């Protein structure tokens, strides 16, 4: 894919580096020459010095052929202008990085397909880690009503050695939760799990759950046997 990234800050250059490793064609634009030189030296992506709101620069970068553009600067106004200009050149997919929530409607109006707020993402992860240190959220579904989580089964857990069927039939198992898969600690293999599968200690188990039952399910999975 041909991807143009606006802004060679930490977010932009890291994204460029990862895309480069995946063998995509990447062009990065920044008005700061030093930043461009650094990202060029570091990753080898084409780095153009200039304003992301200038049509000339965007044409130099090849906006007409871009499959995806990412507005990744810390300036919402510039990001929005960049998104509008990209839209006029019929870029099929535009990703925006929103810095201040007040601009959300403007981003939508500018035709941004996906809007990401790094503060919100960070804050949610922090909240989760504070409430349930054992859990890691893997993905959100339906506007964060449901999430996919990852959890490592503790050593003396009451569920160790039990089949999925046994666990699900327990009275304290919340109904709005479903086991999906696990990565076995012993074999390091990934497997989709069914009723007959057994959970061993230190297995990484993935499940989907509604937000309100996280407390119950976490308690069940991390409860340890009394010695």
């Amino acid at each position: 894919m041909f991807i143009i990234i606006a802004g060679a800050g930490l977010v932009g250059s890291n994204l460029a580096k990862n895309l480069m490793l995946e063998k995509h064609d990447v062009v990065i634009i920044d008005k700061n020459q030093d930043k461009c030189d650094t990202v060029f030296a570091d990753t080898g992506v084409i780095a153009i010095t200039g304003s992301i709101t200038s049509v000339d620069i965007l044409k130099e970068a090849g906006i007409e052929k871009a499959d995806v553009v990412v507005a990744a600067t810390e300036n919402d106004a510039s990001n929005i202008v960049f998104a509008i200009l990209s839209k006029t050149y019929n870029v099929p997919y535009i990703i925006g990085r929103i810095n201040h929530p007040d601009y959300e409607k403007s981003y939508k109006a500018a035709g941004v397909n996906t809007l990401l707020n790094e503060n919100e993402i960070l804050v949610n992860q922090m909240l989760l880690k504070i409430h349930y240190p054992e859990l890691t959220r893997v993905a959100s579904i339906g506007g964060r009503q449901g999430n996919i989580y990852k959890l490592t089964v503790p050593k003396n857990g009451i569920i160790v050695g039990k089949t999925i069927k046994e666990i699900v039939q327990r009275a304290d198992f919340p109904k709005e939760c479903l086991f999906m898969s696990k990565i076995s600690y012993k074999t390091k293999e990934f497997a989709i799990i069914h009723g007959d599968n057994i959970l061993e200690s230190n297995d990484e188990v993935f499940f989907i759950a509604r937000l309100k039952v996280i407390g119950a399910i976490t308690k069940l999975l991390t409860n340890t046997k009394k010695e």
Partner: protein
Amino acid sequence: MFQSSIVYLIPLIIVVLYWGERAEGYKTVSAFLVPAGLSFVLGYILKKKTSSDKIGPTDSMLICGLAWIVVSAFGALPFVIGIDSSYLNGYFEAMSGFTTTGITVYSGLDSLPYSIIFWRALTQWLGGLGILSLFLVLIFSYGGFHHIYIAESHKIASSRPRPGLLNTLKILWGIYILFTISSILILSLEGMSVFDSVCHTFTALSTGGFSPHDISIEFYRSQGFKNYKLIEYTLTFIMMLGGMNFMIHYRVLKKDFKALWDNTEMRLWWKLILIFTVLIMINNLNHAGFFTSNTLKNITNYFGQLEECFRLSLFQVISILTTTGYATKDINSTFFPALAKQLFLVMMVIGGCVGSTGGGIKVFRIAALKKMMSREIFKIRTSKKASNSLIIDKEIVPTEEIHRISSLFFAWIFLLLIGGTISAAFSDLNGWQAFSGMFSALGNIGPCYISVQEMIQISPVVKITYIFGMLAGRLEIMPVLLLFSLKAWK
């Protein structure tokens, strides 16, 4: 200078050890005592006269250039007094030694006094030590860009092994001496005489290439040494050590084995060795009818021939690429067909790694030149506003350095042409031979397509040209041109 008089006393030990053999005697004693005395006196005068003002980059470059000239002037005396050589030949041999080149104007080496043979080897060993020191002095006086030469550019904090010029110098010398001692031990264990192993270690590690034998390393095969294969492989390895950046050795000795692969220069180095060896092997085998003849039917013969071809090709590739110049097969022999002979000239221009004892343009600069070429294509292909700095090991090469590399490259080619022209004008050699001489002198290699006999008889003009070439190649041209620039002396 003052201390250098001691150097002349070392061969006296050899004189005493071999007293009476091969015309060793009072004559060879005086051959070393005279230069020792002279350099002592000169050193004393210089010490009295020079004031210890601060030395800038221009001064240190001038001193380096002069040092090689003066040291060779004294280094010639043992040859003049000891074996009644002409002064020009003696100077040629000494310059060839101190610049670790290895072109010789003496034949019948197997019957020369041991102390003279040892002196030839010692000049190269000292030359190698001098080059390592020069390398550091130059990068410290250029400043700024030095870390890229030391090939740890991605870890700027540890770009030098330890801070400070003197400490780095001590480390380099330490590694050099460590390698010297272990190489002498290994070669002696493999059945080489102690004298030979000392001489060979001195000239292999310094990538010089003087050998105590007229036919170089081929001696061990032709004399039917039991371990000759092992000796050849061992020397290949020692030469390779000499041709690699000593900072890489430092990192490897510190158990950082990634150093062998994590930088542009080393990657190109291994690739060059592989490509040249394979090409020369194919060229040789094809020429010898290996692919068409019936040898394929006889399996032992098949592997035997393949191993021999691999050993000889690898040895010669490493020998020329590191600019040592040993031979297990004369590069002018039919064993190496036309393609191989051309490739040897290419290798003579490339040379060893930066920060090694090898000569030539250096692998790093070849990598930089290659990148400069692809950068021009990149510039045409992309927007003018796109970043287009020259990147090596994730580090931007400053424009200054790019200019330095390109002018060095031009000067190199220019001197090759001048040298070739003079050799052809003042000799009866054919064009191919005459052209090869300057490649060998400028790249500090040793052998070329001119035989030793022809080299002895060649016109003094050509010899002086080669002396200049050796010095220019060793000091990477600029300091030598500086010697001829009046402004620099002010």
